[in-house]
């Protein structure tokens, strides 16, 4: 590996001599991934993958070129290709890219992990999944699915400014799903994914506390049974109380994505869409009620949205996006903040938010969510919020979601709902849905649960970009209530 690292240094120097104003190299000496899937008590697949590769990004006259190969020995060829690509891109460039200044660092980061999942014997991993499968086994459950995914990425980043960062990132995800069939043949599902309370470490020890995964199976089965015999969600306008199992997605889709600066600047228009947020909105737009404070926090120790340093070499940070309902900042990186400030005619963003992330060696860094969290509120527990609700519905479990192209409106379908009348849960309903325009929805936020209601939900599959990338991140969110929301649409 040392010869590769020396080669990286030499390559960066050569690229600058050839006219690049900036270049970086991300070398993945090894990325290990493992996925286990159990369906109906059968171990359907055990897949282990090993990935090696190198990606080089070059900025030439303000234009990006990138090249990658699964062959680190092809370093010189990859570098030449990246530079040639940048030359081509420079032929059509009305607004040259300028990178915001930063101090290059030499550092090493390893995500906190006590027990490496890859050191656990396969039999033990299978036994854990089979135990969950056994707990999901019930006459009402027609199909049971349990899966686990672990990854360990070794990344070496170097750039032409002298940054040299080595990272070892551990992550683990798991999910269980129970599917049942109503008498009329319609299916219902109830699921649960591995989560935590924000602290702790990210290895196999994540399963030690059954409250965070294995212990949830009986509740999943119980709630599925209730949904199978429930009445449909009425079409109505009510207060909607979202538990973390759907609140994370609400936050993700119409706060997280809406505040990615590259999206706001129009860089995702041809694929993932734009944003209703405009540059002039920062500092003035009332995004939500004064109960809404949202942070981009990449410093949470135990979440996939924390990674030490981003793929521009910027240290991870914790900063406010929305404060007491007012929009303050965005999800940013070095490559867009100067353009945004220029176009706004003022300094909105003083420095990079450290959100440049690439999913692998063969993808360029983009502005991606880290951990997008809602601050705990003062409205007590879930039961306190319910007790203070006259006419509402509690919802949990993300079943489907569809968002407008500028994140301006949304539609969610959940796994389960509980109607609330006069401060008490009255009955379970099935097929609960809700949809609304984004800003009126967040402005209707009327209660935010306290710290005890908060859960950190992991997202293993956020998609964005061309070429597209899947990113891992987290949302640390409380139980929240929104008033006067159309449901049952």
């Amino acid at each position: 590996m040392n010869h590769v690292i020396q080669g990286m240094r030499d390559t960066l120097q050569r690229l600058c001599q050839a006219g690049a104003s900036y270049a970086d190299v991300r070398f993945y000496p090894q990325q290990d991934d493992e996925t286990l899937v159990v369906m109906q008590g059968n171990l359907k697949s055990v897949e282990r993958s090993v990935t090696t590769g190198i990606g080089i990004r070059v900025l030439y006259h303000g234009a990006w070129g990138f090249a990658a190969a699964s062959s680190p020995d092809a370093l010189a060829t990859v570098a030449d290709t990246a530079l040639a690509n940048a030359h081509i891109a420079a032929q059509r460039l009305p607004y040259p890219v300028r990178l915001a200044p930063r101090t290059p660092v030499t550092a090493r980061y390893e995500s906190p992990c006590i027990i490496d999942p890859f050191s656990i014997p396969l039999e033990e991993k299978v036994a854990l999944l089979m135990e969950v499968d056994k707990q999901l086994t019930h006459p009402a459950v027609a199909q049971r699915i349990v899966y686990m995914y672990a990854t360990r990425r070794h990344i070496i980043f170097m750039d032409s400014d002298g940054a040299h960062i080595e990272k070892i990132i551990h992550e683990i995800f798991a999910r269980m799903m129970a599917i049942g069939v109503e008498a009329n043949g319609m299916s219902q599902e109830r699921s649960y994914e591995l989560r935590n309370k924000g602290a702790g470490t990210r290895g196999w020890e994540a399963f030690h506390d059954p409250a965070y995964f294995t212990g949830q199976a009986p509740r999943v089965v119980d709630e599925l049974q209730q949904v199978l015999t429930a009445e449909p969600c009425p079409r109505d306008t009510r207060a909607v109380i979202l538990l973390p199992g759907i609140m994370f997605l609400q936050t993700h889709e119409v706060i997280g994505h809406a505040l990615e600066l590259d999206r706001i600047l129009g860089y995702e228009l041809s694929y993932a869409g734009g944003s209703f947020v405009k540059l002039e909105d920062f500092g003035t737009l009332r995004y939500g009620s004064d109960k809404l404070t949202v942070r981009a926090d990449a410093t949470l120790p135990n979440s996939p949205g924390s990674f030490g340093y981003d793929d521009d070499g910027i240290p991870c940070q914790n900063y406010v996006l929305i404060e007491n309902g007012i929009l303050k900042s965005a999800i940013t990186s070095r490559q867009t903040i100067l353009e945004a400030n220029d176009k706004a005619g003022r300094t909105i963003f003083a420095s990079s938010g450290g959100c440049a992330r690439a999913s692998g060696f063969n993808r360029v860094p983009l502005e991606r969510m880290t951990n997008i969290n809602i601050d705990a509120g003062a409205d007590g527990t879930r039961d306190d919020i319910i007790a203070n609700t006259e006419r509402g519905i509690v919802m949990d479990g993300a079943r489907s979601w569809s968002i407008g192209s500028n994140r301006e409106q949304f539609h969610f379908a959940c796994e389960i709902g509980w109607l609330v009348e006069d401060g008490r849960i009255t009955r379970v309903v099935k097929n609960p849905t809700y949809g609304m325009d984004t800003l009126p929805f967040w402005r209707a936020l009327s209660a935010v649960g306290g710290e005890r209601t908060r859960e950190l939900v992991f997202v293993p599959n956020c998609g964005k970009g061309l070429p597209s990338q899947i990113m891992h991140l987290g949302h640390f969110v409380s139980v929240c209530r929104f008033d006067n929301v159309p449901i049952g649409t």
Partner: protein
Amino acid sequence: MPAKKDHLKELLRDLIRYARAQNITAEFWLHAEHSALVRLANSAISLNTCEDLFELTVTACRGNARGTCTLMIAPGQRERMYEAIRIAGTIAQHATPTSYPRTLTPLTPLPDDDGGFDEALWQLAPQQKLDYIQAAVQGLESTEMVLAGMLSSGAVWEAAANTLNDTVVFHALTDANVSLVLSHAQQRWELQSTQSAACVSELQPAAVHAELELLLHQYRGARPQQLAPGPYEVVFGRDALAELLQMCAWLGFNGGACKRKMTFLKEEHLGTRIFSAQVSISDDPTQRAAFPYAFDVHGVPRTPFPLVTRGVFNAFMWDRDSADEFGQKETGHSVPSLSLALAPGTSPVNSLAALLTMPRERDVLYIPHLHYMNAVNHTEGIITCCSRFGALLLRADGSVAVPFNVRLTEKLGHMFGRVAWLSRETCAANVSGTYGTRTPAACVVPRFMGVHDVAITHVNDSF
């Protein structure tokens, strides 16, 4: 290309020998690719990228137990490939066998499936791409009309083998996918044209230019309107239609998903009318424009597979693992991508210009592209999505208006069950994703499909 083909075949034969020497029964899937993508945003080339990848997947088989190791490395690292075989073997040793028997069969010798490989498309030069883009948007950009999009091109080389015999089957093709978007910087509406190409001669910027120009003519100066929710006559363009077809395959035609209670089509629907009589859908690996596979990842030969014939549901698709689990006959559908085709109709409306002047008794909503489609309810086949990129309201009085985006929430059974008309010309609509390794995919569909009474459930009051 012959050298690459021979090298990959020799490599697989060597891996077969090694696995046998280790007493490991195994299947192999090799994937190599060259991918290039020019990304446009804010009228600039915001990224020009390419990648060369090599990936080996080994699945070791021990009775009914399986273990898989996938390796993405340099193609010359033979020792690491041997290690992958040993890792897969070890996993299979320790994995729990399934309760059902799992199939492994010797491969049938098949001709090389590389008729879809165009050297000129593989070697598409950067200047050719720039020239294409420039020609496609010539005269259409301005300070207010901003260009976004992408031109993706590349080649894949793939091969399958297993230790039961020495047969290696080989597949290679080239593809290109174009999406160009013009958006108004202040008014925020967006127009799109797309093009799919299996060879360089199919890259025709004039067609893209004509479509963008016609849409621009409709949008420029128009006063966009907020529609009212309710049922609409809708005409879907090729890209929207391809997305609906894919959703049908996922939520309807997949046999394993049906057994897992995740589809709107059930076994009792076989042989019954589920869609309009005008609708015939197949998975057709003879359609070159659909980037087809002549065999699946297990080397099972693929042939045209009618899914729906004149509205009648013929058959589910069964990948090998689902067929094994549920005691069905596999149908060659363990493939990285399908080759879905919707048969044409008889309508002479085969161009956007003809659509705009088509006689109509009611208002018709033209939706060329669907954004963020998802399944609200799998077993009822309810999907929800939004319109985007150049929707038009074709009024009954013959005029054309521009609508703000709308949300559709409807059953797939209704979308294909209330078909008013289908164009008689077909075209390829590219549905390739760029997540993971390169997997070209396209649906062959009529240029337009008219549908009665589609439910519009939410209407925007702005773009």
